[in-house]
């Protein structure tokens, strides 16, 4: 890595002592000696293992659940169903007033995705829990399912989630988050070329080497210590408190040493049910996702569809951009309504365009609920935007890098969401990339600056 100090030297004082220094990491010695304690490295006498019975269907009504054989299985201590969960219908962003509550801790009457948790089995050993889980009988009436976002948005599509009553999230702005800036249709009308293109992704897993999990220990004083690899301590504690209808003061969360997160450990999934198990049995409880669960049950990055329509001039200026983004939330909201509207704030990318129209939708389908991941709401959008930029440049016969200089945002430029640009550095990044990659651009672009002209 090279630090190029010649850029922005006028706005930066390099007078720091500790900051800016390549100090060794304080956690590394623990890692290389195997001494670092991850949550699962704590073992407690009498610890129970929790295994989940999961839906084999994408969408089904639950006619009945029979746990009697499982309860009799040797080593089984407790079997939990929806009725055992004090506040079974929840949504994690309710803490920042984003509802409605739309997800069940344990399925109640219905499953909406293949893999959804239905029954929790707690047993002396993992093996006993697995064997007992195989003995739980669930009678399902399979329902039509919908997997394609466009299909889901059509009239008459199977309804994924009754708590929403429609297959998309309803924002205060309506069926989508909107940004309206300038007059996009007038922009298209005046453009030399119009280019409309659709981009698509499929779900992506965080795949941390350490799977999601927790170990919960009853402290004997009506408090419970939860060793967890959550990415958000109080967010998880407070949601667990709501789900369990238990004062937060009864909960003690210990974590902060996590084997990779990438956004995959911000859903509150394992902790509430494990705490409930510890409370109802009085025993320590371990609930750790298997690798298979991490890959297919834990929330992935959402699949997205992004449709971009641009109006561009022969001289390289983009004068109108319309973006329609669809986020495949799967069966439940989790963080997806937030991610979808983050896209609305991000488009049209780091470019100054006078006429912009953005709609971003959060769509429900019968698949594993998606949620946050590194680059949440932006990563797939950037793929779409930057491939579109390449296409536009070639359409008008311009060098793709030079085309970006022409449109790059600079300090003071008004963004589509009506914030003036501050602290821009896109131009300088492109100038340095031009040098590093030996991709020459015209001298006028190398002479540009992100600073406000004359300031």
């Amino acid at each position, binding site marked *: 890595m090279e630090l190029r100090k010649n850029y922005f030297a006028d706005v930066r004082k390099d007078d720091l002592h500790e900051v800016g220094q390549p100090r*060794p*990491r304080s*956690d*590394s*010695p*623990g*890692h*290389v*000696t*195997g*001494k*670092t*304690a*991850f949550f*699962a*490295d704590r*073992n407690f006498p009498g610890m129970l293992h929790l295994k989940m019975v999961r839906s084999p269907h994408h969408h089904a009504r639950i006619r009945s659940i029979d746990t009697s054989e499982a309860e009799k299985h040797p080593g089984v201590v407790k079997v939990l169903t929806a009725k055992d969960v004090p506040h079974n219908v929840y949504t994690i962003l309710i803490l920042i007033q984003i509802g409605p509550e739309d997800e069940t801790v344990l399925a109640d009457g219905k499953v909406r995705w293949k893999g959804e948790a239905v029954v929790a089995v707690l047993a002396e*050993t993992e*093996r006993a829990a697995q064997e007992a889980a195989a003995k739980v009988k669930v009678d399902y009436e399979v329902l039509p399912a919908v997997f394609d976002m466009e299909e889901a948005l059509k009239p008459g599509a199977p309804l994924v989630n009754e708590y929403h009553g429609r297959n998309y999230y309803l924002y205060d702005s309506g069926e989508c988050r909107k940004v309206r800036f300038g007059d996009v249709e007038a922009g298209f009308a005046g453009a030399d070329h119009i280019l409309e293109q659709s981009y698509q992704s499929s779900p992506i897993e*965080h*795949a*941390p*080497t*350490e*799977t999601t999990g927790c170990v919960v220990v009853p402290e004997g004083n009506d408090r419970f210590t939860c060793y967890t690899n959550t990415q958000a301590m109080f967010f998880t504690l407070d949601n667990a408190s709501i789900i369990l209808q238990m004062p937060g003061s009864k909960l003690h969360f210990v974590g902060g040493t*996590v*084997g*990779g997160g*990438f956004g995959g450990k911000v859903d509150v999934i394992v902790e509430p049910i494990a705490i409930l198990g510890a409370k109802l049995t009085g025993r320590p409880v371990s609930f*750790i996702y*298997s*690798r*298979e669960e991490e890959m297919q049950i834990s929330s992935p990055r959402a699949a997205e569809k992004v449709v971009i329509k641009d109006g561009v001039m022969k001289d390289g200026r983009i004068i109108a951009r319309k973006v329609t983004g669809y986020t495949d939330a799967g069966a439940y909201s989790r963080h997806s309504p937030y991610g979808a509207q983050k896209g609305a704030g991000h488009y049209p990318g780091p470019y100054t365009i006078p006429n912009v129209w953005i709609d971003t939708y959060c769509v429900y389908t019968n698949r594993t609920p998606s949620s946050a991941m590194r680059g949440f709401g932006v990563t797939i959008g950037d793929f779409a935007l930057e491939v579109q930029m390449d296409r536009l440049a070639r359409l008008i016969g311009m060098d793709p890098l030079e085309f970006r200089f022409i449109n790059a945002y600079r300090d003071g430029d008004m963004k589509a969401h009506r914030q003036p640009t501050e602290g821009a550095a896109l131009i300088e990044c492109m100038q340095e990339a031009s040098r590093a990659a030996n991709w020459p651009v015209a001298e006028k672009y190398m002479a540009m600056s992100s600073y406000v002209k004359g300031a």
Partner: protein
Amino acid sequence: MAKVPVQFTLNGSEKAEFIDSGTTLLNALRDKVGDTSPKGGCHQGTCGACSVIIDGELRLSCLTLAETCNGTAITTTSGLAEGGVLQPLQRAFLDTFATQCGFCTPGMIMAAKVLLDHTPNPSRDEVVEALSGNICRCTGYEPIIQAVLTAARANSQNAA
């Protein structure tokens, strides 16, 4: 449930435990012996975080039944530093900033140790091959490859 005895040396010290038949070496080491340096990243044999050295060979402790290890000598990452002094390989992981979350690190170090034990001056390709059964999601592998090559250079300098 029938318990079976297992006996092996772990990092040079004798261990004997009664375990449930069918227990994996990973679970025996972590839950019975108390050595949590091997990590359970997948229990499928696909991530390498549980790697240990058994009689000089790299093995996956998650797929090895403990009772098949009777009489063996097992090495784990927790046993490498002697008297609190890091081995050159461990030192190299620090110096090249080859750890991030640290979960894969003990397994990576095991894989690298077996390589360097047999091949003190490996080529880059040999390092790549040696690490190929171990997943890292944070680093992009390059710092770990550099750590192993750095350790190899340190080894050869010590030998010379």
